[in-house]
């Protein structure tokens, strides 16, 4: 909710403020002039690290130091838990809410969305002012505000309902037969998608290109895992090649951070994800990860700003 403070301590630690539009940014004023719109998930919100260490904030400060006649800002409208399909579904609404953007960065994480979801994501969510943060603050009923506050400040009942109850149901489901069911667990290979996947991806990228005139950058922050031998393993695999090819064909910039993360790991043994109070290599971007991401993205945005 606009104006809320988010205090984070379970993964990294930081204090964030939600801006007047309902998004997590250092300031509300960033959309006053030319800006780059960042759509992504919790990685882009970056509430696990201090505000000034987040990659969007780092880019913001660097863009403002460019020796140009006008200022370019980076503005974050990410929503936790969004995958690529969610971003595409909300693409039109986002560009309508923030119509003056110079470029859009779509930040994605793991690529395990279903084919069905990909095929349907060009069906756009309609934009309405009633859904904006500023409107909600003004027009929420007391009852809705109280409900929202309970959700915000009492996460435990929500956790019990959403997570624990499901676990309990599944435990009861396997009662008296756990040893047998543990043996039968089969892991499905998510990469077996074939031509349908490639075609659906092509259609989505064509849609994005046709509906936005400015620069579109797809920024992939892949999950990586330690596999020994001083290297990181990339979990997104073959889908990245498809993305790379399809983006090139449609004039979209595709940045995959895996190579940078791996290079930094080989050189300095630093990992982009994880914190001293969680597991390194997992979870959200840490300060190193944000820095690497900002450094990689900056040349593309500088070039765009100069144009």
């Amino acid at each position, binding site marked *: 909710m606009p104006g809320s403070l988010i205090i984070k301590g379970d993964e990294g630690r930081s204090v964030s403020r939600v801006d007047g539009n309902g998004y997590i940014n250092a300031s509300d004023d960033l959309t006053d002039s030319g800006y780059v719109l960042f759509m992504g998930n919790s990685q882009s919100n970056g509430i696990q690290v201090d505000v000034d260490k987040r990659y969007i904030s780092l880019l913001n400060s660097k863009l403002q130091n460019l020796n140009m006649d006008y200022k370019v800002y980076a503005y974050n409208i990410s929503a936790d838990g969004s995958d690529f399909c969610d971003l595409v579904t909300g693409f039109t609404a986002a560009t309508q809410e923030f119509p003056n953007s110079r470029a859009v960065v779509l930040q994605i994480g793991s690529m395990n969305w279903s084919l069905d979801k990909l095929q349907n994501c060009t069906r756009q969510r309609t934009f309405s002012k009633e859904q904006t943060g500023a409107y909600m603050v003004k027009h929420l009923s007391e009852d809705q505000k109280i409900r929202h506050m309970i959700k915000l400040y009492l996460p*435990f009942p929500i956790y019990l309902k959403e997570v624990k109850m499901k676990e*309990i149901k599944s435990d009861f489901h396997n009662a008296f*037969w*756990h*040893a047998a069911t543990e*043996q039968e667990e089969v892991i499905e290979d998510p990469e077996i998608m074939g031509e349908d996947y490639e075609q659906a991806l092509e259609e989505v990228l064509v849609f994005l290109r046709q509906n936005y005139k400015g620069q579109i950058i797809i920024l992939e922050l892949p999950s990586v895992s330690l596999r*020994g031998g001083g290297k990181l393993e990339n979990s997104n695999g073959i889908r990245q090649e498809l993305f790379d090819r399809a983006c090139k064909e449609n004039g979209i910039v595709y940045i995959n951070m895996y190579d940078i993360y791996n290079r930094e790991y080989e050189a300095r043994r*630093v990992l982009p994800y994880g914190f*001293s109070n969680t597991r390194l290599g997992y979870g959200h971007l840490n300060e190193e990860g944000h820095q690497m991401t900002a450094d990689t993205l900056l040349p593309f945005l500088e070039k765009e700003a100069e144009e």
Partner: protein
Amino acid sequence: MTFISAEFLLLFSITAVLVGVCKDKKKRQLILLLASYVFYAYWDVRFLALLVLQTFISYSVALVIEGTDDCKKRKRYCAFGVAVLLGILGFFKYFNFFVSSIQNILGHEFEIWHIILPVGISFYTFQAISYMIDVYRGTTPVCREFYKVSLYISFFPQLVAGPIVRADDFLPQLERNHDIKISNVEAGVQIFMVGLLKKVVIADRLAVCVDAVFALPSEYDAASIICAVAAYSMQIYCDFSGYSDMAIGVARFFGYDLCRNFNMPYISKNPTEFWKRWHISLSLWLQNYLYISLGGNRRGIYRQYLNLMITMVLGGLWHGADWTFVLWGLMHGIALVVHKIFLKYKGKCQLSFRNEVLKKTVNIISVFATYCFVCIGWIFFRAESVGQAFVILKRIITCAGGIHYIYSFTIIYGLLLVLCHLYGVWKNNGQGMYPILKLDRFWSKVVVCVVLGLILVFSYQGDNAFVYFQF
């Protein structure tokens, strides 16, 4: 089914109500037995047959032993019973290990069954053996009611991860009718909460760091590995003693006393003291039924050392079917022998410190040295292979570089545990204790509620089974 699950809460509640409603001693015990069988069968009903079979063998052999006065026959029957029970344990626990060792020697793999290890088999097998040997030695009278022997072996609080209760401790308790008393309920709930705190707040949280580093130790620097080893020493202590506390708490609720299993092991000044404070029920079992059966210290000093080594190696193997556990047991066996030799020479040379400051300093150094030794042992205990254990040791010794990962909870919980231990040393003369409050006062109730709230808030919500379930 673990103690921290909705299923257990349901089973426990139903059992408590039925035991509370029913006044008859036998019916109460049958209810507890039924609950124990449901508790065990919930994991996999097929293995319930194994539990019943082990109980039946123990019960029958004890009756046969009691039925004869011929010492040789009694011994033969007892040996037969022990062999059968160990044979069952060996098949389920060591068959895969045996096959993989042969495959390694032969250098090729062949298709053979994969045996699933039944939960808690090591614990209830030891209890079944304990009953037979006690009857053979005459320290426990034979029990003619099958349900009582069954309840002793399968009593659900201690069924899958101990404490390993001795027959002469538990069977006499079955002669009394246990009403659910408010004092027992209060104590039981609070002891359970202590265990819950150790498990879900400390052990499960520390597992995050331990699992990460032990999965790929070759990628982490020496400081991170040392931090992870220290975290593991706390994790295994809080996990296992936490489970024991919960078991003791649940049993106390129903009016039964289970033996203490841990007594601040990390303040031990030497390996001998460590084994008097760590997994006490297992140490006593090994001492009473293995070490003494091997001859103990009755056959000369060198035989005593050998007996100690055999006991510790087999004790290590009891923990798991892997060479890492054998080495862990061997390490502790050697340490116990070295300590015995040291004590012998200390006595001969009359080595002792009169100066109090010097004495305290030596004690502190001894505690630290023993802790370091125990931690080196934990490396073998936790490592996935002997090779990995040596990789860890090598990286520590060579101060190897790599990912720098100092887990903040290792430091926080480390300090917390040090403070708790210091409090135990100061307040209770080095003995562990449960901070049990009398709940007749308002503020005591508030404290218990606050502690419960804190446990919920700080509990780790990932998925971590009890470490000792695999044994």
